[in-house]
């Protein structure tokens, strides 16, 4: 790798993943920097979402998935048999392409996670408010917290999902094409949000929109056919990539 990440929060070593017989990730090695935004780019089927879903072991839910190699988060191997998956998914939150608020009130959406951990009353109110503020949604919903989350616009729903993920205090936020279903203004708001969230959270975002990766991320990894081709600081990738394949992709010569 051209860039050495000092103090990485996630360390991936020799990761191979197979869906039954089909191999989707080949010997991936990378370090994700702490409290920065890292983007995964690459054409459809390149493995970027597959890798993202390894970080919170969401791939476990798929039958016949086999994983070799290691992923360490804060030095801890997340595939170790002793790992508590719920605790992992609290530390590593995720938002998806299609926002999926619960069919509950805005308040209850955000409060759902903390409630499970036994948090109640004024402390719960605090957490809900703080999370909605952190997701840049508070001003828009503070007077209607008991209305259904499903009544919000697409962009607001996505921010609600981000607030929900943040309510349980994660260190890492995974975002799988979070803006694909949103219009440019809503997209801009989420990108602006990512910019502010970086101060406190580590963000890993999968996007098929290269320009978005260029705008929001500090580091970018380019994937092709299950391999990580190049990983470097974003300005470097977009001004002078080292690998020909990266250059061909970002200049639109294929994919």
């Amino acid at each position: 790798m051209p860039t050495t990440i000092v103090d990485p929060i996630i360390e991936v070593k020799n990761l191979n993943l197979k869906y039954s017989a089909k191999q989707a990730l080949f010997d991936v090695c990378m370090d994700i920097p702490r409290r920065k935004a890292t983007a995964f780019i690459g054409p459809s089927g390149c493995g970027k979402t597959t890798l993202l879903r390894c970080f919170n072991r969401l791939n476990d839910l798929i039958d016949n998935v086999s994983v070799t190699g290691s992923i360490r988060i804060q030095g801890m191997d997340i595939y170790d048999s002793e790992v508590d998956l719920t605790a992992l998914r609290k530390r590593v939150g995720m938002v998806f392409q299609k926002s999926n608020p619960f069919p509950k009130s805005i308040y209850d959406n955000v409060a759902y996670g903390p409630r499970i951990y036994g948090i109640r009353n004024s402390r719960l109110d605090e957490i809900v408010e703080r999370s909605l503020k952190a997701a840049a949604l508070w001003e828009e919903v503070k007077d209607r917290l008991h209305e259904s989350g499903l009544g919000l616009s697409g962009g607001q729903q996505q921010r609600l999902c981000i607030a929900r993920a943040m309510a349980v205090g994660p260190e890492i936020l995974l975002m799988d094409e979070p803006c694909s279903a949103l219009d440019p203004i809503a997209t801009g708001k989420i990108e602006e949000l990512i910019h502010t969230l970086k101060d406190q959270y580590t963000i890993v975002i999968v996007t098929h929109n290269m320009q978005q990766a260029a705008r929001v991320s500090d580091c970018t990894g380019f994937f092709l056919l299950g391999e990580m081709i190049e990983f470097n600081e974003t300005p470097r990738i977009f001004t002078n990539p080292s690998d020909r394949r990266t250059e061909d992709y970002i200049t639109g010569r294929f994919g």
Partner: protein
Amino acid sequence: MQRHFHEELDLVKEKTLKLGSLVETMVERAVASLVDRDSRLAEEIIASDEKVDALDIEIDEDCLRLLALHQPAASDLRFITTAMKITTDLERMADQAVNICQRAIELNEEPQLKPYIDIPIMSQLSQKMMRDALDAFVRRDAGLAREVIPADDKVDALKNQVFRELLTFMMEDPRTIPRAIRLILVSRHLERIADHATNIAEMVVFLVEGKVIRHTSKEPH
């Protein structure tokens, strides 16, 4: 992201102005090193050129990064490409100032050939052109930019005047030839500085109006 991007654009503008200010000072002091016969000043200015070169590279890198990372459009895009070109012109103007200093050092080794009259005037005119072009850039004032362009004719006229006058010196007395030629070169360097200021002004019109007026015959103002 837009807010962040526009902050970065402002930074590019600030750096370009800083570069302009450095170069303006270099030109002013270069001519002073000639008129006041101060070779030490000339050496100082020559040394300061490396700051200009460094800032030129820095601004270029900033602009490249902004283009790569933010895909700007319309006037933002024109702003960045204009800034890149203006920076190039400013860097060349600094090189011309260095050339003037080198001529000054050479001229200061011999007695002054004649009172310097036209050259200081050329210098003032060029400096004003540069200042106005940069003001126009900052304020996005196409009107001010267009006023710079015809001022170039006055500088050209003075250059020709200097040439004719020094030619008579040289024809009368060959011993004046080294000094006369160096003074003619100084007038050329100043004339080039004025040309670069004109380029900057033409780029500002492009920035503001999206209209290319470079390389066309001078438009009336």
